């Protein structure tokens, strides 16, 4: 279980969004590793995608006397109530990876910018374009998930000019096609597209959608294609479908999170890339910040982000694009994963 269990005074509370996604299980592990080196006690709780459970978790941690709260919300808007409760107790709130918006109760932000993740995914597709007129398949996360919109927003920022200039043509979304000349999508416009191409973050749903889309696509929408897949789980499912369609001669597909399962796919050439968010850096930044605060020092920041109410001082970590050519260097050599966990390296 989480370190520092039992009932002793806890200094740092960590709340992560869900254990249902591999990404956050990784974060848990990295936090546990980072904790070993500090003299402070910490505890990690999961919200299982529910802002209500998140609030309960925060309250529990407050009860246990934390001084610093590191929190990554399933929903950045809905977390305001939770952190405001913490703020009332003079707890320093560090928004981890996802920014908590529309509240003054956030002190710091440690991030891989979600919008930047989408941009990195899209940029990879653009860099590997065989255009002009190359078919582009769009997929998004859950229509119920704010983060899915942030990723998509980033991707659209990069893709839209290339769609407008004819490098890509959209293969699977009439809504996106209709909006292809709009550079900056409103939330409403985005929701129309996302509603059409949502995977609900479910690999099975992604697979169903991909099959349907390939059924619907004419020969001109096949051949060499590029695919925007929102994360690794859905990316693998979509890639599986495209790989079995004989009319698709090649595909470039994005991903995110550097799941072990996807790293193997990248090594095998089944998935093109993944956006690697080196959780260790983020964890170290967050824990470093927490320790500074506990030690009474001013933590170091590199900039600031507006959250709708205030500008939150932030420390930003760059995301790393991992592909077949650099997978060993970025993930194995850096000690993030063991080479033995994969085959064919």
């Amino acid at each position, binding site marked *: 279980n989480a370190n520092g269990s*039992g*009932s002793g005074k806890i200094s740092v509370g960590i709340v992560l969004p869900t254990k249902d996604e591999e990404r956050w299980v990784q974060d848990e592990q990295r936090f546990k590793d980072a904790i070993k080196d500090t003299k402070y006690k910490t505890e990690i709780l999961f919200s299982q995608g529910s*802002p209500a459970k998140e*609030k*309960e978790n925060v309250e*529990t941690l407050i009860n246990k006397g934390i001084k610093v709260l590191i929190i990554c919300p399933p929903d950045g808007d809905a977390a305001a109530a939770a952190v405001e409760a913490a703020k009332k107790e003079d707890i320093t709130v560090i928004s981890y990876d996802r920014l908590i918006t*529309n509240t003054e109760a956030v002190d710091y932000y440690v991030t891989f910018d979600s919008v930047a993740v989408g941009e990195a995914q899209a940029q990879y597709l653009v860099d590997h374009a065989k255009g002009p007129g190359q078919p582009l398949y769009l997929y998004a996360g859950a229509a*119920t998930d704010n983060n899915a919109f942030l990723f998509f927003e980033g991707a659209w920022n990069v893709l839209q000019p290339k769609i407008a200039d004819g490098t890509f043509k959209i293969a699977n979304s009439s809504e996106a096609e209709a909006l292809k000349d709009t550079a900056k999508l409103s939330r409403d416009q985005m929701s129309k597209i996302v509603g059409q191409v949502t995977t609900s973050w479910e690999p099975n749903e992604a697979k169903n959608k991909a099959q349907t889309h390939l059924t619907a696509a004419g020969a001109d929408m096949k051949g060499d294609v590029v695919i925007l897949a929102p994360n690794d789980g859905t990316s693998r499912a979509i890639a599986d479908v495209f790989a079995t369609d004989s009319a698709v001669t090649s595909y470039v597909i994005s991903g995110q999170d550097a799941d072990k399962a996807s790293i193997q796919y990248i090594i095998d050439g089944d998935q093109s890339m993944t956006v690697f968010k080196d959780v260790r850096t983020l964890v170290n930044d967050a824990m470093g910040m927490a320790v500074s605060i506990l030690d009474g020092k001013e933590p170091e920041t590199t900039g600031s982000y507006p959250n709708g109410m205030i500008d939150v001082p932030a420390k930003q970590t760059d995301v790393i694009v991992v592909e077949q050519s650099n997978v060993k260097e970025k993930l194995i050599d850096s000690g993030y994963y063991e080479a033995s966990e994969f085959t064919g390296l």
Partner: protein
Amino acid sequence: MNLFKETKTLVKVNIREYGMYIALFVIMLVFTVMTDGLFISSRNISNLLDATGYIAVLAVGMTLVIVIRHIDLSVGFAAGFMGAIAALLITQAGIPVVLTIPIILVLGIVVGLFNGVLVASIGIPSFVASLAGMLIFRGALLRVTEKTGTINIKNEQFNAIGNGYIPELANVGGLNLLSLLLGALFIVLYIAAEISKRRNKLKYELEVVSGQMFALKLAFVSAIIAYVTWIIAGYNGFSWTVIIMLIVVVIYHFLTTKTVLGRNIYAVGSNPEAAHLSGINVKKITYIVFCSMGLLSALSGILYTSRLQSATTTAGTLFELDAIAAAYVGGVSAAGGVGKVTGSIIGAIVMASLSSGMNLLGVGISYQYMIRGGVLAAAVIFDVMTRKQRS
């Protein structure tokens, strides 16, 4: 000793009813010991009760639905949907809170009416009708929130429902005065009611417990109320959520035990055919119960939305199962006709205590699921066993 014997028979006869309270007590004791007292701290208990609010309210409504042998799976997303509508009314239509709340509650009744039509008039099994409702509300919730995503609410009044506390008046040695007064009021009302009840019974020459036993019971319950009040007053006092919960329980308890309507509900649950032949309008009762469920779903949605100060796109997910679990842990019988709203509230608190206690202990989420499943099973096994024994 005579008193001891009386206690023993009382416990034996009422074991099913007391079982739940004993279980709650044991769970609380275990967690208190294991967390070095942290569990029973003012703050934790206060938080725990607040976190139970929106489920407890649903569980009350669900109790009646199960009593009349139905089920309602749509309440979760219905609550989420109505919470979102509330958020929209406040943030976008600029309707004041005092107007929004009644509007939403009426909307809840309409939603209940809709279920009532399907179940009572068309005659679809409620399980399927509400499964369809669940899908429809899920879609509707997405529909109203997909334009904006999560809707933040900045309205202080509204947010106080889920996060605020009743005013303090004065602070007496770290305790919230108004809360203390409220607690004292409860005790006085309770004692007065019990005494009048006993006097009345004696007047009609009905059987009552011995005087000693009666005094003991009064003292015991008063002590518990006092203790809970003292704990709650030690943090911020009664929250509005707890007050709302209490009001709902009191109203529904009164409704189910003291009124003709309440009796008719239990009659319908116990034997719908016989109820019909006794001149009870079964259809009407079914409508009323589903409307009450809709009303409480709306209230639950308001509590939840206010608690998070925002309406989210996934609000309401699995609320229905939590509410149903709470009702069953609270002793409702699937065969119909049996179940108390007070029991369901205790059931909801038991489940919330489990979550809270395990969080305090840092139990992993996978074990939390398994333990909650185990407790649910254990509660129903206990219920079935004691019922077999008694009858």
